[in-house]
């Protein structure tokens, strides 16, 4: 449904046409951004919609109500006052210079219209205001006067004021133009979050980048007319009108001059380092290969092998493909391995469909990245190296290439791999994201779901203090890769720490965390205490705030409670907190090179009907350490009545610093680059763990080229680094060939 309909609107000031025949519809939930040079009439149009300016002729309809009709002569006739008022209440306006009421506090700025116009009680309107201020992260400013706020804060208050009346359509007139450059960001991100909530908005702005990100549709106005409108992609990437191009040129410099799309034509005409690898990378990028949906890439690999008369095995259930190239009969194979699937993430504005669209590659200097999506360099690069090797006519020893499926989510390929299909005893995995490093050990990862059986009961807690502690915006991260970074903090544990050894608490609710392999980013707990424990809590929380102030937000709220409340009883509350505190978290043990070799993550706490659920995990590169930890853990489970409901073990492999493969690669690397390759022990889980558990005496290491921001739309790899790794791979092969000949 159209929230706004504008037809043939014309307006002039002193005979000068400011708006010349503009028509525009805005659908419900749509964010329309109007851009254009100064004086193009875009702000005037917005003011006409809000009835702050009168138009000469045309129609304007808001949410089905006619603001303006036309009479026979085409002159604009405004509807009667009652309707105008009704329309007025459906519209919200955010002004360039805020127009906050200076004599009212932040709170009053929001509540006044609710009380005077919408006849809400003081209590209701304050509640609305507080909720909005919380959303804007301005709750602590509620009693300030506008003159004491920064520009960005003022504009956020004015957005809150506009939202308070719950308008059908929000109009924003250059909301960031009056702000200092460093304050623009906070306001834009507020507006972005509104767009995500599907609020209907018309925004006039000069922030072109922002327009591209936030808009469902961009309208380009010039000289009082709409010159062009379309999706951000259409307008920004491929504007049709000369005037639009000219205007946009001033604002966007298509990210430098070095940006080029890599397509077949480009590869044909241009030279690139490690071109054979990049060419195969381009080929597999055309094939959708989302985790769990690897059928198409498998078919491609099978076709590839058939075309070249190579021996292959296709494990249909596991969706693994193994291709062998035998150059000398009877000689051993050296194996490479990579996973075919990729994480599929995209920017919100991208319309990419990972199930059918090819990934578009962009070359930006030395980097190759994708067009607003993940690139799949993890681990498409590995696949590309192997294809280039299999395709190569150069002399090499026997090679075996193992393409596994779904590494990113379930590791099903590695788990189901049939050991009989692998002939080699040395596998070089190509799934490393750092050149100059070689992974020689992966973590064994235990993951558990557990629960404390509990239900809430009504208790008389009259006169108790009700506390809420809320942790938010912590950095989180991957429980394998980021666990050693103490700055990330674990909100669940931090809360446990604050409440450690405080008796007589009744927990009302608690929840936080997301997935079992992710460090939690937020946690919220609400509980009651008979005693006033303000000082106790504040002291501990202040310490945490000082440590985490850069990223995390910690809030403590105390209210007085009257009457009853539904809570867990004292014993259960105590057990829950004791259990959290007993679970040792973070990086726990290090080896001599300061690699983490034992770490644990308390990942999530959730409330369900019949109990409180926990998710936690343990990673270790040393099984002895792991078993000691698990013994302690089991004792604690019994002590605090925690029952494990699910567990899984992801296999790891312990380091071997002196294996043939490790020695060989180290030597070759040193010959090639004149420095030692760094031996890495990861807390991550690698497919190698599963291989090692299936194949006796398997030698397994992991190498690869520099990739950055994997699993995000910013993912990219360095071409130079790919070339280096490509050289290394060849050198390793040659060394094996020499060994064989000697």
């Amino acid at each position: 449904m159209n929230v706004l309909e504008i037809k043939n609107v014309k307006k002039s000031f002193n005979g000068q046409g400011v708006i010349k025949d503009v028509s525009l519809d805005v659908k419900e939930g749509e964010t329309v951004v109007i851009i254009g040079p100064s004086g193009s009439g875009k702000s005037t149009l917005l003011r006409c919609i809000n009835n702050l300016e009168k138009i000469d002729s045309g129609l304007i309809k808001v949410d089905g109500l006619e603001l303006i009709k036309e009479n026979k002569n085409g002159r604009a006739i405004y509807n009667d006052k009652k309707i105008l008022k009704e329309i007025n209440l459906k519209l919200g306006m955010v002004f360039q210079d805020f127009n906050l009421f200076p004599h009212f506090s932040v709170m009053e700025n929001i509540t006044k219209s609710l009380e005077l116009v919408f006849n809400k009680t003081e209590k209701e309107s304050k509640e609305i205001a507080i909720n909005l201020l919380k959303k804007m992260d301005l709750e602590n400013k509620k009693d300030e006067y506008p003159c004491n706020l920064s520009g960005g804060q003022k504009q956020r208050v004015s957005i809150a004021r506009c939202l308070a009346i719950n308008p059908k359509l929000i109009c924003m007139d250059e909301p960031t133009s009056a702000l200092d450059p460093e304050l623009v960001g906070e306001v834009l991100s507020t507006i972005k979050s509104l767009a995500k909530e599907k609020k209907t908005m018309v925004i006039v702005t000069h922030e072109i980048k922002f327009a591209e990100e936030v808009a469902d549709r961009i309208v380009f106005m010039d000289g009082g007319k709409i010159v062009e409108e379309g999706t951000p992609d259409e307008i920004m990437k491929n504007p049709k009108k000369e005037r639009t191009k000219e205007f946009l040129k001033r604002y966007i410099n298509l990210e430098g001059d070095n940006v080029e799309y890599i397509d077949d034509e480009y590869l044909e005409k241009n030279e690139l380092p490690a071109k054979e690898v990049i060419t195969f990378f381009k080929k597999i990028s055309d094939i959708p290969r989302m985790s769990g949906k690897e059928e198409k890439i498998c078919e491609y690999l099978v076709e590839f092998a058939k075309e070249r008369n190579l021996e292959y095995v296709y494990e249909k259930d596991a969706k693994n493909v193994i291709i062998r190239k035998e150059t000398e009969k009877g000689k051993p194979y050296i194996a490479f391995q990579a996973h075919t699937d990729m994480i599929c993430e995209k920017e919100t504005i991208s319309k990419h469909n990972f199930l059918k669209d090819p990934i578009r590659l962009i070359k930006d200097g030395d980097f190759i990245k994708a067009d607003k999506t993940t690139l799949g360099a993890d681990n498409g690069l590995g696949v590309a190296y192997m294809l280039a090797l299999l395709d190569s006519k150069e002399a090499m020893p026997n090679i075996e290439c193992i393409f596994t499926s779904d590494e990113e989510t379930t590791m099903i390929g590695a788990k189901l791999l049939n050991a009989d299909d692998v002939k080699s005893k040395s596998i070089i995995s190509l799934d490393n994201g750092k050149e100059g490093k070689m992974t020689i050990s992966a973590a064994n990862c235990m993951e558990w779901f557990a629960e404390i059986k509990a239900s809430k009961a009504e208790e008389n807690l009259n006169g108790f203090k009700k506390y809420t502690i809320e942790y938010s915006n912590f950095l989180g991260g991957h429980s394998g890769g980021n666990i050693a970074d103490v700055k990330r903090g674990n909100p669940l544990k931090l809360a446990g720490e604050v409440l450690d050894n405080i008796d007589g608490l009744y927990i009302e609710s608690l929840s936080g965390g997301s997935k079992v392999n992710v460090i939690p980013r937020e946690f919220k707990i609400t509980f009651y205490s008979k005693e006033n424990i303000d000082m106790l809590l504040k002291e501990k929380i202040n310490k945490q705030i000082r440590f985490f102030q850069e990223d995390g937000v910690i809030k403590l709220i105390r209210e007085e409670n009257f009457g009853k409340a539904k809570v867990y009883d004292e014993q259960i509350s105590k057990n829950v907190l004791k259990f959290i505190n007993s679970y040792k978290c973070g990086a726990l043990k290090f080896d001599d090179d300061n690699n983490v070799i034992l770490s644990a993550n308390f990942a999530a706490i959730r409330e369900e009907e019949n109990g409180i659920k926990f998710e936690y995990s343990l990673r270790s590169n040393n099984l002895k350490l792991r078993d000691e930890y698990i013994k302690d853990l089991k004792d604690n489970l019994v002590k605090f009545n925690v029952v494990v409901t699910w567990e899984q073990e992801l296999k790891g492999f312990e380091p071997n610093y002196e294996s043939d493969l490790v020695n060989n690669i180290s030597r070759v690397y040193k010959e090639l680059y004149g420095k030692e390759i760094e031996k890495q022990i990861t807390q991550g889980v690698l497919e190698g763990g599963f291989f090692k558990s299936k194949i006796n005496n398997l030698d397994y290491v992991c190498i690869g080229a520099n990739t950055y921001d994997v699993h995000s739309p910013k993912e990219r790899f360095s071409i130079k680094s790919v070339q280096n790794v490509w050289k290394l791979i060849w050198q390793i092969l040659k060394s094996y060939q020499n060994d064989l000949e000697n």
Partner: protein
Amino acid sequence: MNINQVINVCSVLLSGIGTLLEIFFITLVLAVPLGLIVALARNSKCRILSWLIKNYILLIRGTPIMLQIIVVYFCPYYLFNVTYDRFLAIIIAFTINYAAYFAEIFRSGIESIPEGQKEAAYTLGFNKVQTFFEIVLPQVIKNVLPAMSNEVISLLKTTSLAQIIGVTEMFSLAQKQASYNFSIIPLCIAGVYYLILIFVVSIVFSYFEKKLSYYR
């Protein structure tokens, strides 16, 4: 003059302060709201009204208040042969005069409020009356206080013109005492009294200015 005479003069003059304050306060109470109304009428969309108001302000500011007092008191006598209370005449004359000055102050105050304030109020659904009393007026009052204090102080001193039509107030008493004693000391004493009164008025105004300085 000896000290006894001086004390005597002091107490005589003190008795005149009552009338002075009566004129002062009554005029203030009537002229301030009237001034606000005049200011609004002057900005009115009704052209005749705003034309009338413009000329009224021109007339009042363009002629001496002394003449205005005389006209207000004697006109009814010459036109209709009616006389009325001299004190009332003073109040009417002063109110008409000061309303014009206050109106100009209010007008400048109202015009100093950014249009955006009214637009914001409009988009939030405030009607005109709410907009004026909740948004515009509070800010106008803060803006006009300094100019207002000037005019109020001038009113306090202008009360001395009441003697034109024979209303006795402090300064007329002082003049009488001066000629009676062949001395200007009574006039000086009157001066001191004015000074004290105006000092109090200033304090009151700076108190209000301070109170409204919580925002900018």
